[in-house]
């Protein structure tokens, strides 16, 4: 079964690189819901107007997850800007997540 992608596209108009995220979740499970919320919050706080999030629900099809070598959910992949970064878990450890996504110190 092909994975259905539900994109919430908010392409940037502001200056600076556009961040493209792909978040793999498992339906409405607690950690997946937390990860969605946390990612949206980080993006609004640090990348307002210049980010793109694609949510992939593995329950609707595991193929995309498999193609992306995703073993667990929630998994967040920063596709752009390069280099690619993968973060596992519900993204509740703000400091570590921001550091991993190279957003630490990008306060506005």
């Amino acid at each position, binding site marked *: 079964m092909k994975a259905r992608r539900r994109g919430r596209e908010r392409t940037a108009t502001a200056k600076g690189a556009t961040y493209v995220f792909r978040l*793999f979740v*498992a339906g409405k499970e607690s*950690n997946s819901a937390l990860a969605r919320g946390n990612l949206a919050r980080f993006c609004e706080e640090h990348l307002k107007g210049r980010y793109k999030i694609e949510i992939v629900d593995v329950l609707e099809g595991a193929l995309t*997850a*498999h193609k992306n070598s995703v073993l*667990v959910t*929630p998994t967040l992949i920063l596709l752009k800007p390069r280099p690619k970064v*993968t973060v*596992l*878990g519900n993204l509740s450890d703000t400091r570590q997540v921001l550091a991993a996504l190279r957003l630490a110190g990008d306060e506005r």
Partner: protein
Amino acid sequence: MRRRKLPVRTSNASIKANDALIHALKTHQIDAIVGERHIMMVRLKQTEEELENSRDQLRALAARLQSIREDERAVIARELHDEFGQALTSMHLGLSWISHKLTPGQQPLQEKIRSLSATTTSLIRSVKNIASELRPGALDELGLVKTLKSEAREFEGYTGIQCGFKTNLAKANFDRSAAVAIFRIVQAALTNVARHAHASRVLIALVKKKDSLILTVMDNGKGITRKLISSHDSLGITGMRERALALGGTFTLTCSRSKGTILTVQIPLPRVVIGRAP
């Protein structure tokens, strides 16, 4: 066709990825494991929390039930003592009064009165025993330590099993609920010894340590099976465990054929208020 061997890489990146995966699994941040053909949902944390909540609720319920039971026992004991005790005492005095009014010629009546008087005395004693069994008044009057000492003496008296009591708490008072719980645990443990252990000796020890209170009841009987210890049908053991847990303590029962049974209850001291006796 020759198959090309894949290079095995153990780069820093893959080690980091493994660490991240282990961390996420350990901290219960994972919802699902995605395999090639299936997705396994992981609800460990949620299930653990639900189980723990359910256990907490059961413990709270058990503690509440014990408390209600003790209150009801106290009410019944008071009613028995005040109503029946008073009535029987009046009856006894009445019979004695009639007995003094009888003339020497009324011998058969005299005999009947003496017999009724003996029955009344026996009834008064029974009512006192039942009331005291329902609510150990000695706990209020003498305190836990002396009550346990007296319980050990009485147990030895009616079972013939040598029963000792040791403590390092000579002059201490416990808060009522803790004292009742400890007393009931000892009562249940001694009942088990008398009924099942085939022991010739039993020792009760109540020891105050730095941050906990430890109650031990050990006998030299035949011990009990592990199956029986964990069985839900062992109501006595379940009751003792529930009372210990309600005080925030732990309950362990160890046994062997050669060494008998050792029951240990450990209660953290802040949960049990111990004050100096007045």
